C-alpha cells in the first residue's frame, strides 16, 4: 500500500524547506537529504516539534554518484513521493571562462538529477506506484545571454522529465515537472527581481503540493509564467538574438 512518506533531495534549499513544512503540516513523514548534515539536524528537530511527524535525515551529495547506491539502501523506507529541489545557478560570466564551474552547473542541474531520479524511476516502476517531482526552471524554456549555461542544463532536465513521464505513464508512476519563474530565495539573493512576477517559497510549495495531489504533468509557478514563456518562445530568433535580457 501507499505510505504517507516523502523524500526531499536538497532539503536545505529555501523552496525545499517550505515543501517540507507543507508536507509536515499534512501529516507526512519526512525523509530529508542534503550536504550539510549539521544544519539538517536542527531543521529536522524543528519539523518534528512543529508537526509531530517522523523526520529522517541523510547526508547526500548529488555529485558524489558513487555514494548513491548506499544512500538508497540506507533509506528507512522507500517514500512514495520523491522531490528533487537541488540546483545551482552559478555566475554565468564566470562560467563562460571557467570549465570547472560550468561543468558543475551542468552536472548539478542536469546530470545529477537525471541519475538519481533514474534509480528511483526503476524502483517505482517495479513497485507499480510512486510520484517523481523535478524542480526545473523557466530558464530552460529559452536560452538567454544572462544564464544560458544554467538554462541549457535545466532544458535538458525538463526534456528528461517529459521522456520519463512518457515511459512511466502506463506504469502508474506520476512525473511532475515544476517550472518556477523567479522566487525569493538564497539563489536569487541580491538580484533585482520583478516584484509582481516573483513568488515566495511558500507559494511554490503550495503549488507543488496541489499539483502532486491533482496528478498534474507540468506546472508553472506563478501561473502567469506559462504565458510569459509562451510569448518569449514565439519571438523569432533573428529578433531575439539582438535583444538583451
Amino acid at each position: 500500500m501507499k505510505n504517507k512518506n516523502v523524500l526531499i533531495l536538497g532539503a536545505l534549499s529555501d523552496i525545499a524547506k517550505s515543501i517540507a513544512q507543507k508536507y509536515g503540516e499534512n501529516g507526512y513523514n519526512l525523509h530529508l537529504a542534503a550536504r550539510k548534515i549539521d544544519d539538517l539536524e536542527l531543521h529536522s528537530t524543528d519539523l518534528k516539534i512543529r508537526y509531530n511527524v517522523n523526520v529522517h535525515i541523510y547526508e547526500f551529495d548529488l555529485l558524489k554518484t558513487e555514494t548513491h547506491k548506499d544512500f538508497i539502501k540506507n533509506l528507512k523506507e522507500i517514500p512514495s513521493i520523491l522531490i528533487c529541489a537541488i540546483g545551482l545557478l552559478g555566475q554565468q560570466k564566470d562560467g563562460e571562462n571557467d570549465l570547472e564551474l560550468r561543468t558543475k552547473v551542468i552536472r548539478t542541474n542536469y546530470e545529477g538529477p537525471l541519475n538519481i531520479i533514474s534509480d528511483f524511476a526503476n524502483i517505482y516502476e517495479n513497485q507499480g506506484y510512486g510520484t517523481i517531482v523535478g524542480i526545473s526552471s523557466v530558464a530552460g524554456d529559452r536560452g538567454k545571454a544572462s544564464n544560458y549555461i544554467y538554462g541549457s542544463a535545466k532544458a535538458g532536465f525538463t526534456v528528461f522529465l517529459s521522456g520519463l513521464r512518457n515511459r512511466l505513464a502506463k506504469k502508474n508512476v506520476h512525473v511532475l515537472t515544476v517550472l518556477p519563474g523567479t522566487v525569493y530565495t538564497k539563489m536569487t539573493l541580491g538580484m533585482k527581481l520583478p516584484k509582481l512576477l516573483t513568488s515566495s517559497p511558500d507559494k511554490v510549495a503550495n503549488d507543488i503540493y496541489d499539483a502532486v495531489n491533482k496528478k498534474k504533468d507540468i506546472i508553472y509557478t506563478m501561473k502567469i509564467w506559462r504565458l510569459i514563456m509562451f510569448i518569449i518562445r514565439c519571438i523569432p530568433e533573428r529578433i531575439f538574438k539582438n535583444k538583451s535580457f
Partner: protein
Amino acid sequence: MKENLNQSNISGWGGYPIKKANVIYPENIKQILVEVKKRNLIARGNGRAYGDSSINENKTINMKYFNHIISFDDSFGILVVESGVLLEDIIKTFLPRGWFPYVTPGSKFVTVGGLIAADVHGKNHHKEGSFGNFIEWFEIINSKGEIIKCSKTENTELFKWTIGGMGLTGIIIKAAIKLRPIQTSWIKQKTLVAKNIDQTFEIFENNMNATYSVAWINSTKTKDNIGQSLIMLGEHASIEDLDKKNIKNHLEIKSKKNKIIPFYFPDWFLNKNLIKLFNSIYYFFGKNTSKEKLVYWDDYFYPLDKILEWNKIYGRKGFVQYQCVFPLKKSKDGIIELLMEIDNSSVSSFLSVLKRFGDQESNFSFPMKGYTIALDFPVSKETFDLLEKLDDITLKYEGRFYLAKDARMKKEIFKKSDKRIQEFINYRNQNNFDEDFQSSQSSRLEL
C-alpha cells in the same frame, strides 16, 4: 562560495527612514562568527520596529534563517527557539496544544530576538510586566566571537543590559522562554465607554486585576471630552465560557485569508478630516456594540495583522509612531497636554492607544509605572515640527521614549529623558560594544 550579501534599501515598519544597507543572511552560527569579528553591525529580526533600530548601513545581519524551534518542555511550558523564530510560528505550533505567549505586542510578525531586544510590552503590563519577565535564558554572540549564555543567575550583567538593549549588546542566537497555559483560543472581551480623560483613567485604575486592558482614544474630541475612549478589557476564556459551537474545537486555529494592500496610497489620502471621520465612526460603533463578547485570539491581539502591508496606506513617504510613557502621578496632565498640542496642529493621529504600565525593574527597558500613549502620523514637515513639541511635553512631565517606535528623535532630547542612558553608554564603552554593535538609531542618538 558566494557570500550571502545583498545591497538593498531597507526601513522599519513605518517606511521611514529608508537606508541603503549591506544585508547578510547567515545560515548558521559559523557564518555569524565570521561577520561579528569584522565589527560595526546590527542584528535584524523581522523589521517591525518602526524606525531605524535594526538598520546598519555597513552591515545588517538578518536573522531570517535562524528560525528553528529547538525543544519544548510541556510540563513547565519552556520553549527553546532560535532568535529568528516568529511569534506567529510559536502560536501556530503551540496554541493548539494549549499554550500562548505571556506577553505579546500588537503584531505576531515579530521575532523572539526583537521581543527580547525591545523588551516588548503587551496589554497586560500592569499585571504581568514585560517580555523580559518570561525569559529563562538566552545565548548571545559578542564581538570576540564568544557565545555567552545569560540568565538571572549566569552572566547577569549582560542578561540585564540585553533585555531592552535594542541589539546593542550583541547578537542573540537562541532563547528559552516561558509560555502560558490556556484552555481555549478565545478571549472574553468587555468594552467600556469613557466620555473623557477622567473616566478613562478611572476605568483603568478600577480594573487593575483585569489580565488585559487597553484604550483606544477618540482623537477627534477636545476640551471637555478630551481623552474620550473605548476601553477593552480581556481575559482568556475557559472552556465553560464558550458556546456549544466552539467547544468542540476550543483550541483551533482557523485558516483565514489575510487581505493585502497591493499598492501605496497617495500621500494626501490620510488627511486630518478623513482621520477624524474614521475615529468618529469607530467610536460610534464601538460604543453601541455589545459590551461583553467572545473574541477569537487573532482578532483580539492582532487586528492589524489581518491586512498585510497596511503601512502602505500612509503613502510612499511612510509614517512615524510616537510612543512615550509618563510616571503615574504626571500621566494625566502629560497626556492631556499632548492631545491638546496635536489638536492645535494640522496633523492627526489615526490610531491613538493608551495603556497602563505596572512596576518594572530593568536596566534599559522602556516601561515604567504609569501610562503610555502610542500615536501615529504620516511623515511630513508638519509632523516633524509637531513631534518636537511633543518631545518637550514628554520631558516636561518626566516621561521617556520608546526606541522601537522612534525614527527621528534628537540625541539631546533622548539623553535628557532618562538617567539610565548614560549608564548604558558607559557599559557599552567598557565592553567595546559601541564600536561593534551599532544601528542607524544608536549612531543618531550617540548611544
